[in-house]
């Protein structure tokens, strides 16, 4: 599905468009386009993109192997359905949640969201963030008023089932006012020829966001997604990220703990077969005293899949009493699968609790034999052990419904990939 895409071709689509956007939005885009023009598509010579050479992945012509997967279902939620990057309002119910299409916001000269879009935990020298801002058209904006709880999760469904020429760049903004609570579920399915998706979340004091990302891209899918977050005092961000990789699949969680007692918890699971690529990158900034972050990423890689985890913890000079924990575990099911992990700690305060650990290993052969000796066939035994590997992550999801969803997602993957996984090379 994927055609070749370059910095030049992306800049071309970005110029000379008339999208009916308000002046503030056009100015933001122009600025971002200039930034992207200066930076260009990232390649592996940039340290932050060492395991994920996007420029190269986009220069390749790729073909889908196997049938194209669709998004995970999420019945009973407020929905925003994006077909090949275009919001389909007729199928969606997001307005019931008080959410609005991004197009409408960008066209509004006096939108209350000016300053928020592109303003949450801004990054310097981030080519893809600039690219996304320069080209964003479609997306969703949600504000949950102070003290209210969004009754149902907001489900953003990104389905990529047809050829999209060039790239598609989507933007989501979630604002939780003081004491508000909400659940955001993103599902990604199919093969975008190239998509960037930026989700900005700003959590005011005492608010709570549960964020679930379930990515099920096809083997030719190329997507680079970012979650930018600012978490206020005593606010809590809880996330479960699941990714099955793609021709290129990357998600960056760029979070700033900006108020005292702010908290971020992330459980990540990646499962990749074939020649897929799957990158989880996090930069968690503890900007003020007494904030907590916890992240654990688990990956299972078979065939010739490549997985990467880069986790950076930054503790600002006066952020005393920071508690930051980070853990990554990769399980290689084949000798040709590769896992890279790179923890980085940049700590400028003294009273800090910081723990990190990374392991890369193989499946426990003794456990596999034990199960098989009880009559459980190899593929099923592998499934049982892989599910067990993720069980601790899944158990961390407090909401029963979401835990069920995530568990089903892992089991779905296991049942549809059992044969690929068992052919250990």
């Amino acid at each position: 599905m994927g055609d070749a895409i370059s910095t030049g071709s992306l800049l071309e689509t970005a110029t000379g468009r008339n999208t009916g956007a308000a002046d503030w939005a056009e100015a933001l885009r122009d600025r971002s386009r200039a930034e992207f023009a200066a930076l260009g598509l990232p390649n592996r010579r940039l340290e932050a993109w060492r395991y994920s050479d996007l420029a190269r992945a986009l220069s390749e012509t790729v073909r889908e192997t196997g049938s194209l997967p669709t998004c995970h279902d999420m019945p009973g939620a407020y929905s925003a359905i994006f077909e090949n990057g275009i919001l389909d309002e007729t199928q969606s119910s997001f307005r019931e949640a008080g959410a609005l299409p991004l197009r409408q916001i960008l066209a509004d000269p006096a939108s209350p969201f000016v300053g928020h879009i592109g303003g949450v935990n801004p990054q310097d020298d981030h080519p893809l963030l600039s690219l996304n801002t320069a080209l964003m058209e479609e997306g969703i904006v949600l504000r949950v008023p102070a003290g209210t709880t969004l009754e149902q999760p907001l489900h953003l469904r990104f389905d990529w089932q047809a050829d999209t020429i060039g790239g598609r760049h989507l933007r989501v903004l979630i604002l939780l006012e003081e004491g508000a609570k909400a659940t955001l579920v993103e599902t990604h399915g199919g093969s975008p020829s190239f998509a960037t998706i930026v989700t900005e979340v700003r959590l005011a004091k005492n608010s709570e966001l549960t964020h679930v990302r379930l990515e099920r891209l096809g083997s030719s899918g190329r997507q680079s997604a970012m979650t930018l977050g600012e978490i206020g005092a005593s606010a809590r961000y809880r996330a479960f990220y699941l990714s099955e990789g793609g021709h290129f699949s990357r998600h960056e969680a760029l979070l700033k703990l900006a108020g005292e007692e702010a908290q971020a918890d992330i459980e990540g699971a990646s499962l990749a077969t074939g020649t897929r690529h799957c990158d989880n990158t996090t930069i968690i900034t503890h900007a003020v005293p007494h904030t907590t972050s916890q992240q654990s990423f688990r990956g299972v890689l078979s065939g010739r899949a490549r997985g990467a985890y880069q986790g950076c913890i930054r503790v600002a000079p006066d952020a005393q009493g920071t508690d930051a924990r980070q853990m990554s575990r990769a399980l290689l099911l084949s000798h040709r699968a590769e896992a890279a992990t790179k923890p980085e700690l940049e700590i400028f305060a003294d009273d800090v609790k910081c723990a990190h650990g990374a392991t890369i290993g193989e499946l426990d052969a003794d456990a596999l034999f034990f199960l098989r000796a009880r009559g459980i066939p190899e593929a099923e035994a592998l499934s049982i052990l892989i599910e067990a590997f993720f069980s601790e992550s899944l158990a961390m999801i407090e909401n029963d419904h979401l835990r069920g969803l995530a568990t089903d997602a892992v089991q779905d993957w296991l049942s549809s990939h059992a044969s690929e996984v068992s052919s250990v090379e």
Partner: protein
Amino acid sequence: MLEINDLHVSVHGKDILKGLSLTVPPGEVHAIMGPNGAGKSTTSYTLAGRDGYDVTQGSIRFKGEDMVPLPPEERAAKGIFLAFQYPLEIPGVSTLTFLKSAVNAQARLRGEKELDAVQFLKLIRETAKGLNISEEMLKRSLNVGFSGGEKKRNEVLQMALLKPSLAILDETDSGLDIDAMKLVAEGVNALRAPDRSFLVITHYQRLLDYIVPDHIHILAGGRIVKSGDKSLALQLEEQGYDAVIGKVA
């Protein structure tokens, strides 16, 4: 039931079994005793079909069929069961789920009907009770946080549920207190049947007071060096391996 003939096995290129021959007819209990490192566990792993245990010579026949080419799960479905000397802990897999997967997988491989959830729970409750295994233990991850004795009883529980034709017990008595040993022996004796055989590996003649063997074999240096009736165990206890095996040599 089981015929092992001139079996040579190497593990990681090291020859461990060197011409082991042993026949266990249906309905009989055979005990294997032998010094540490003699190759007893190697024999049991080889019978169960563990990867890396290469049969370089000789044969293993079970109910007349060659076992060597078969993977562990097929041997299990055909009725070979190994109670491990060191049962494994598998965090994240509940004991109950594991037991159900095993019982149903074997039923499937044999082309039989799987048990439904209600039938299975009833079966497991009854069997576990007899072995003094609590429901709380069944809910825990497989063997995680189990005491040594509890792990061994859990092995016997699996045997009782899977009803194998040949049960190999690799030092199932080690680490058990007297009461637990009696429970385990009762579990084994309850399963004794004309179409079921047992291979009991032990260091202690005491177990053989409870599970009375038809034959005792001494394994040393990768071969059976002496066989006899149960008086052999008493003789070993009194005189030790050197004296008894020395007489043969």
